[in-house]
């Protein structure tokens, strides 16, 4: 076996390990995704969509919050193409911030991987992926492991919701949705190592609370993120100019 082959095989083994590490690390969050997927399936049927339409939406759109909004609109008799698609765009605009944050790593990947990983990008996949970057550097195989686990879980739980959802007492009342914030807490604490990060965290927390109260949909995330990032960036700018 020549040296080139050996490094290639080593690379494959490494990405295999990263893939499974990503799939495993998404485990706790999957627990929180399942009740939402089931609810999505149930809501789709209630709103008058067929089983196939509800499942196709999960498979092609793969963005929970915007699917709930669109399904609610269908249920209310709003079926205008422009209105639903535009609302979806607004609800998902926050993904641009996550895309920007990961762009540094993604631009170095092949176009196929860029498209695939972008298609699969969600709040949850982003949260788990950036923690891995913080601890051991970026790995596209890891991000794919996290993302595809979330995708399969979302699709299967939507299908479960469509098939048997009406027999399950309100899945969101189980409290499983708590799995997500609980997991994110473990991902957040290692980042709060200096004054600047702590300030960013406090500002983001305060703005997001006000945002949920006064802004529609998921806009609280965008406003909290931009506000906190500005404060953090300005603080670091001051620090740099003091030196």
């Amino acid at each position, binding site marked *: 076996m020549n040296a080139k082959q050996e490094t290639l095989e080593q690379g494959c083994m490494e990405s295999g390990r990263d893939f499974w590490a990503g799939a495993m690390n998404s485990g706790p969050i999957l627990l929180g995704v399942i009740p939402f997927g089931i609810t999505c399936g149930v809501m789709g049927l209630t709103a008058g969509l067929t089983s196939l339409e509800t499942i196709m939406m999960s498979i092609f759109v793969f*963005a929970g919050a915007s699917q709930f909004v669109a399904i609610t609109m269908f249920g209310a008799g709003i079926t205008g193409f422009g209105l639903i698609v535009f609302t979806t765009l607004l609800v998902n605009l926050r993904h641009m911030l996550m895309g920007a*944050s990961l762009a540094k790593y993604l631009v170095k990947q092949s176009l196929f991987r860029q498209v695939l990983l972008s298609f699969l990008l969600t709040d949850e996949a982003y949260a788990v992926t950036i923690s891995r970057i913080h601890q051991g550097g970026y790995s596209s195989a890891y991000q794919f492991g996290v993302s595809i686990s979330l995708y399969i879980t979302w699709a299967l739980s939507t299908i479960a919701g469509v098939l048997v959802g009406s027999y399950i007492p309100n899945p969101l009342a189980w*409290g499983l949705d708590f799995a997500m*914030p609980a*997991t994110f807490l473990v991902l957040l604490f290692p980042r709060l190592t200096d004054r*600047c990060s702590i300030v960013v965290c406090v500002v983001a927390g305060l703005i997001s609370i006000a945002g*949920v*109260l006064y802004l529609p949909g998921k806009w609280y995330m965008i406003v909290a993120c931009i506000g906190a990032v500005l404060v953090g960036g300005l603080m670091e700018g001051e620090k740099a100019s003091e030196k």
Partner: protein
Amino acid sequence: MRNEIALIIMGMALVTFATRFSCVALLQKTGMPVWLERWLRHIPTAILTALIIPALVLPKGQIDISFNNHYLMAGFIAAVVAYKSRNIIATLILGMGTMLFLRLLA
């Protein structure tokens, strides 16, 4: 599958992909400029916080800082465990356990 619904789903899929891919596409040729990287550095902390805090403080859309807010109580326990252990499994077990316990009490 009705045509007009299929069309709407495809439209939704397209704009969603656009939000996820646009920044990567824009920086394709140039790579990430250094000045931009400085501003983007705090996005992870900000987004994680914005995902956690509302889920605990306003689980039903209204500020609820009381013992009746199980998310806040279990979140407090989970935060302490997360801070001390840095361990997802321990945090989940104790956090979800608190949640279940509070639900059984209520």
